[in-house]
């Protein structure tokens, strides 16, 4: 029963941002995945990069699922529990599609850069043209297939655009080592186009940061 389930999970499509995050992480690294869900990214990194991975996840159900897969995951909250980790205890701290659900994204980001040498953050870009269009044309908070919740029941309380995030990085004095945006089809946008185009066409963005 659970074997079938596991197989299905492994065969199910890998998230686009996970593939990009994977490409940013060097083999055998120590990785902390904050908001790791059921551990899909950690599993991918364990299989393909042989990382020493740990996860924090807010949903106990997801945690139990991840631990049953042999992953090292604890129940916890990015906003309150990162303070427990010592400085520089990981090579990478990953926050994939989670920052928009944190209460204090700035503090969380600072914690990531304290705990790890590199922080990798992926987030849905609120500057994407479809979202802009929904607000402009209908005057309503956008609901898309990737962001399906209504404004009143969404866990996502701190949306930002690619430009906003780049500004936050400056504010906390983080160095952007690499920034990649992907369009609605999961295709990476070219490096050569200007930032405002990334901000318009990028559905999700992945930033690799270090401390300046």
């Amino acid at each position, binding site marked *: 029963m*659970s*074997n079938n389930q596991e197989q299905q999970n492994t065969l199910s499509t890998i998230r686009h941002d996970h593939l990009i995050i994977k490409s940013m992480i060097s083999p055998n690294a120590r990785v902390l995945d904050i908001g790791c869900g059921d551990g899909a990214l950690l599993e991918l990194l364990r299989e393909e990069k042989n990382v*020493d991975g*740990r996860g924090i996840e807010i949903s*106990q159900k997801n*945690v*139990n699922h991840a*631990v*049953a*897969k*042999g*992953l*090292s*995951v*604890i*129940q*916890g909250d990015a906003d309150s*529990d990162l303070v*427990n*980790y*010592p400085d520089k*205890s*990981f090579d990478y701290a990953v926050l994939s599609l989670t920052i928009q659900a944190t209460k204090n994204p700035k503090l969380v980001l600072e914690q990531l850069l304290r705990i790890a040498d590199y922080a990798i953050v992926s987030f849905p870009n609120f500057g994407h043209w479809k979202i802009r269009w929904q607000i402009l044309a209908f005057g309503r908070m956008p609901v898309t297939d990737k962001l399906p919740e209504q404004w009143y029941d969404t866990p996502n309380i701190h949306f930002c655009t690619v430009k906003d995030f780049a500004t936050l990085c400056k504010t906390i004095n983080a160095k952007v080592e690499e920034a990649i945006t992907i369009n609605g089809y999961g295709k990476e946008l070219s490096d050569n186009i200007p930032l405002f185009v990334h901000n318009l066409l990028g559905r999700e963005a992945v930033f690799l940061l270090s401390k300046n």
Partner: protein
Amino acid sequence: MTSHPKNKDQHIDQSEINASGNESDTKTQEDTTSSSVNARPIITQSETKTFENTELKLESGATLSPFTIAYESYGTLNADKSNAILVCHALTGDQYAASKHPVTGKEGWWEILVGPGKPIDTDKYFVICTNVIGGCMGSTGPASINPETGKTYGLEFPVITIGDMVKAQVHLIDSLGIDQLFCVIGGSMGGMQVLQWASKYSARVFSAIPIATAARHSSQNIAFHEVGRQAVMADPEWKGGRYLEEKTNPRKGLAVARMAAHITYLSDEALHSKFGRNLQEREKITFGFDADFQVESYLRHQGFRFVDRFDANSYLYITRAMDYFDLFAEHNGILAGAFQNTKTRFCVVSFTSDWLFPTRDSRQIVHALTANAANVSFVDIASEKGHDAFLLDEPEMISAIRGFISAGAKQKGLSASGIQKDPS
């Protein structure tokens, strides 16, 4: 996981399995083919190892010598002795984790987890379960003979601690030639032993699974233990602890202690859903003090069943050991100090309805471990069964432990190095 063929005719030759050492051994071997749970026999050995010339220096300053450890082992130790799992029992548990209890005839207390094809797979691992020092199932305890007087120790037995129990286990593990245990696992007081192992002997513990436990015994738990001890000592048959010589038995006191303790192992929801206010084999209340309610009858039954298999003085000593357990105090109040630079993999397990060792106790352990950037998993299992859940068929607990142990085996390279292959 591979599925296991049900092969009841399989014969396991146990003559090859032999422990060596200077210690005097008495040994019985048996095929445990426990009927329903394990279709396949486990290679089981019941052993009693006496350390004649070893001094067990206790935290109190006293010394036990000689001392005896009775233990059960299941499965086979591999060539490089890397596949050993130590199972630690709880307050009123014993070494019969996966073998028939010699007194009650009941199947092992953790067969839900230990056996062929189970998460603690006796086809793959060499599983050891010892009766703790202070216990009453063959290890040295207050009912043993004091070599200085030739009589049973009774209250002359020194007060022992969780640290002392573990120290005795270390002697046993040494005598078996095992450098590092692949895993140490246990619930409740067993979990305290796991934490003690991981804290004091961390290099010798590859992975640790403390379940439904705490790094220090709470005030409320000490209070419950005190009620139990006072119940025992208030029984006139206790005779100041010398009941064995006086040929009496403080059954009533010990049964009351067990009844009170048993309530703490359950939960309000569990009691409500199991018994409610149902009456025991009667139509209406009797206006007397018979066991009108099912829950009363159940507790009385639990109490009196317990005294047949447990020594009253052992109950005093082991509850005391739990009360004294405090890993915080040993590290100047900072639990993180107990796990500095630990390389051990941890899987901490708690249950939502456990009010004896509540989830927050496990969370403290997890926080101390993350403060050391330790490799830790933590599952809080939704259950209404209270503290006892760790002994019961909780599918999420079982799958978490299975996942954790098999990932550990992979990391340690156990699947490749001499784990006994399926003998069929």
